[in-house]
């Protein structure tokens, strides 16, 4: 049997590298998905939340009478009702606590004050109108800089006198933590002696991930069995289960959390929200299932904003543009409670990835978290924890440096890249970059886009008074959280898991600790199993999201599914294959060492006729195994990664700007991504398109803004920018492959790179259009109005 025959068999498996069609699509295209709001249980009631109209106020009274008198209303739950259960406050993933329902005061607009439980959503909404809450207004703190003023109003009275809020020492009533990394003294020294330094204040404004499906749950407590079942929009169902047990004292074996189909997550569905907790309490109290689904206004106002990082970037360099030191700091506005979604010990996430793709000898970074009277959150909106903020800073600052020295923006990157022979690379801020090969990728993009030609065209346009910008971003991400030595959530290490069972007739099921929200897990994990086990991916079922059946895992966010659970999948499959090898040897009456693996079978070395296929072995595993071996063919792997993975990308954006109106038009966006081994190219492209579109949204229009009273200015899709078909640019994708040396199949994770790298690329393009006028930075979002303001201030609209 020849090589071509092997290759043919390999193709038929539709394993790693195959653009196979998605397994999950048939149900979605026929309207047969099962999202949380589709769950309907007998006797189910609906919950709706009474929310605060004020950003900062004391609650002087709550009167439920009128609401309770309304036919169809079953209960009105307030903090007073939760107190006896100890559930009026809950711990956050960041070591702080958060009011489940406002306890005597409200700290942000739309904060949860009470929940009305009624027959259906209409009556519940009517009931909300009838709950009478009296407030006494307090002065709100909206601006994070002012939060640290000597006489700033105290937001968190519950923390007065406490010198920490779960993340180390704090030094002011509105201060949460200071997080520092790097060698400050050495960095300061380089700065004082440097030939050139640049400094820029750079904002990552408050935005919201807004997946198309909002958050919600159906909680169902079975009094007889003492069991709590919760259908929930969660990116981390196992973590939810553990938290439910810790909060409620219902034993973990009596709690079942099910994340069914999830309508997009993007970090919005990592946290545990008050609505979930109150629904569970309501179900326990009332003895019937309770559904709570937030509406879009509630989603944009309260569940998990992202960013709000007020950064200062500084670089020191020589006159040739070689960076000698980096000094970054940020003021992080966490809102009223620190419910930042993060590995517990990382208050600023992985902000120390801020040295980027560049070989920077010494660096220092510092982040201070503060409370304000705004909604809590700080989630990783389609990125690993605080990686967008970090990458934005470095990718902006290297452009600022290039402009100062009048060096081309591609050339300055060439001069600073970590070289291929430096990997694994120890960064000045503590990471070990696993692999990378930046320079050839950059050259590939520059050539594909005719970068020189674009610069020539830009020069001509500038001579004619036209505005054209070319943006580059050459970024490195850090994903796959994470090694349990670095990362845990509330003490649980951030491993992930896969359990594989091969059935007697050779089909299989893989159960995972992660949960897909559109990434196509049912398709791609099966491909890994197919290649590793030699069974067709079409015959491999993937199941996730039900804590009763799936092995424990930390969930899907921070691009951790492929790096962590994907590795668990490969290793679980390999251990099954090792057992299969012994069974094959037994069947062929040879020693296991005499066998070699060939796509989907073991064959006796030097005797291609003597073979046992995986299917044959699967059958034998249930009736004819070597003496002393257990029957069956299944295993579970809990994978604790030795390191993170470091995918990278080279992006180029060309923008034309109308100098009368400020209207921008993205002429070209070219994205080269290197995510290591590529499991399904079709899905990768789709992930990149989607991530780029979310980057476009953030860079060009998204903003959650407040007036001085803490009133949210715009919390519907009327005001909050979601790009439509019309604004969204056309995407071009490309790739190189630099496998991760420590990942079993060399894969790194991809879905967040386009968001992380896309945002600075758009910004760099917009700012580059004004570079010849001395502009070094403009804050996002680059709406037509904001761009016009720059144009107007420069007198270019004349």
């Amino acid at each position: 049997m020849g090589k071509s025959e092997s290759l043919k068999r390999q193709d038929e498996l539709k394993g790693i590298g195959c653009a196979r069609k998605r397994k999950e699509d048939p149900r979605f295209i026929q309207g047969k998905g099962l999202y949380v709001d589709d769950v309907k249980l007998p006797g189910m009631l609906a919950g709706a939340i009474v929310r605060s109209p004020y950003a900062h106020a004391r609650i002087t009274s709550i009167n439920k009478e009128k609401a309770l008198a309304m036919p169809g209303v079953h209960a009105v739950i307030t903090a007073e009702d939760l107190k006896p259960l100890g559930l009026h406050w809950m711990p956050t993933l960041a070591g702080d606590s958060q009011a489940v329902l406002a306890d005597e005061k409200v700290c942000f607009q739309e904060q949860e004050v009470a929940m009305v439980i009624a027959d259906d959503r209409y009556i519940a909404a009517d009931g909300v109108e009838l709950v009478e809450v009296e407030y006494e207004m307090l002065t709100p703190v909206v601006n994070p800089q002012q939060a640290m003023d000597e006489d700033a109003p105290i937001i968190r009275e519950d923390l007065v006198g406490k010198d920490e809020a779960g993340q180390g020492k704090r030094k002011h009533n509105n201060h949460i933590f200071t997080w520092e990394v790097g060698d400050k003294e050495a960095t300061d020294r380089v700065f004082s002696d440097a030939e050139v330094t640049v400094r820029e204040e750079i904002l990552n404004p408050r935005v919201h991930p807004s997946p198309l499906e909002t958050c919600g749950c159906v909680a169902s407590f079975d009094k007889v069995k003492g069991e709590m079942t919760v259908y929930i929009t969660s990116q981390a169902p196992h973590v939810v289960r553990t938290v439910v047990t810790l909060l409620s004292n219902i034993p973990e074996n009596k709690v079942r959390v099910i994340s069914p189909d999830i309508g997009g997550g993007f970090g919005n569905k990592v946290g545990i929200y008050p609505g979930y907790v109150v629904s569970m309490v309501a179900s326990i109290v009332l003895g019937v299932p309770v559904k709570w689904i937030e509406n879009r206004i509630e989603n944009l106002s309260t569940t998990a904003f992202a960013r709000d990082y007020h950064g200062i970037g500084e670089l020191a360099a020589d006159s040739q543009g070689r960076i000698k030191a980096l000094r970054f700091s940020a003021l992080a506005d966490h809102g009223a409670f620190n419910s930042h979604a993060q590995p517990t010990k990382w208050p600023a996430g992985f902000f120390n990835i801020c040295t980027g793709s560049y070989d920077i000898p010494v660096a220092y970074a510092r982040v201070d978290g503060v409370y304000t009277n705004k909604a809590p959150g700080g989630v990783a909106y389609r990125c690993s924890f605080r990686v967008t903020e970090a990458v934005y800073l470095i990718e902006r600052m290297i452009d600022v440096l290039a402009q100062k020295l009048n060096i081309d923006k591609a050339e300055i990157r060439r001069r600073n890249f970590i070289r291929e022979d430096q990997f694994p690379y120890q960064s000045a801020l503590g990471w070990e970059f696993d692999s990378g090969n930046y320079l050839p990728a950059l050259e590939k993009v520059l050539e594909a886009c005719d970068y020189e030609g674009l610069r020539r065209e830009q020069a001509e346009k500038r001579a004619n008074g036209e505005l054209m910008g070319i943006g580059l971003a050459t970024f490195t991400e850090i994903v796959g959280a994470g090694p349990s030595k670095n990362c845990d959530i509330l003490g649980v290490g951030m491993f992930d898991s896969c359990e594989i069972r091969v059935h007697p007739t050779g089909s299989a099921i893989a159960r995972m600790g992660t949960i897909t929200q559109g990434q196509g897990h049912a398709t791609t994990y099966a491909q890994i199993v197919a290649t590793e086990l030699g069974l067709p991916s079409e015959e491999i079922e993937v199941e996730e999201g039900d804590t009763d059946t799936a092995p424990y895992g930390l969930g899907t966010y921070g691009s951790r599914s492929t790096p962590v659970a994907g590795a668990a999948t490969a290793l679980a499959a390999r251990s099954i294959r090792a057992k299969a090898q012994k069974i094959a040897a037994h069947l062929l009456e040879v020693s296991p060492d005499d066998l070699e693996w060939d796509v989907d079978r073991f064959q006796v070395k030097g005797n291609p006729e003597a073979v046992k296929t995986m299917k044959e072995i699967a059958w034998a595993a249930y009736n004819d195994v070597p003496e002393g071996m257990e029957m069956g063919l299944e295993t579970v792997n809990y994978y604790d990664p030795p390191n993170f993975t470091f995918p990278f990308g080279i992006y180029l954006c060309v923008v034309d700007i109308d100098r009368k109106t400020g209207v921008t038009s993205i002429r070209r966006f070219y994205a080269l991504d290197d995510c290591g081994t590529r499991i399904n190219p079709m899905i990768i492209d789709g992930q990149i398109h989607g991530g780029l579109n979310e980057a476009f949204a953030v860079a060009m229009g998204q903003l959650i803004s407040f007036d001085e009273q803490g009133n949210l200015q715009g919390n519907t899709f009327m005001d909050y920018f979601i790009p439509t078909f019309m604004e969204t640019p056309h995407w071009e994708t490309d790739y190189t492959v630099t496998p991760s040396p420590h990942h079993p199949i060399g894969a790194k994770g991809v879905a967040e790179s386009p968001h992380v790298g896309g945002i600075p690329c758009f910004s760099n393009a917009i700012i580059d259009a004004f570079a010849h006028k001395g502009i070094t930075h403009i804050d996002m979002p680059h709406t037509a109005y904001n761009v016009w303001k720059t144009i107007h201030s420069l007198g270019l609209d004349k």
Partner: protein
Amino acid sequence: MSKIQVSFKLNGKDVDVLVEPRDLLIHVLREQLQSTGSHIGCETSHCGACTVDIDGESIKSCTVLAVQAQGAELITVEGLAQNGELHPLQQAFMDEHGLQCGFCTPGMLVRGYRFLQENPDPSEDEIRYAMAGNLCRCTGYQNIIKSIQKAAVDMKTANATSAE
């Protein structure tokens, strides 16, 4: 509130349902008629996840009252496949990876289904314009456009073959 009887055709079948005057069509479809394919993404007629076809027009069912459907012919995503065969647009969404989380997909399909009847041979710009009332957070739209283009070609080929 006294209830009103509303009768309409849903995916070819006659239905009668008792509704309150204020009930929105999307809620009646999802909660009373168990037709949960159409989704709710905003309830303010911005996202299009709730799009259904009413008497040959694409309508956001979160912004019409159920009583307005009296006597109408409704098509939802559940009614696109005929006799167990996927509509070419459904097939094309699968072939071109036109969906990820699937939450916008029913609205996209129902709108695309009508649009391809209005314009069987659309350009990319025409697709972008005609579909702009439907938001997607996952796909970046490009593969949805490809899906619609593919369906247009497939439907033309199928028509040509059946006309022969």
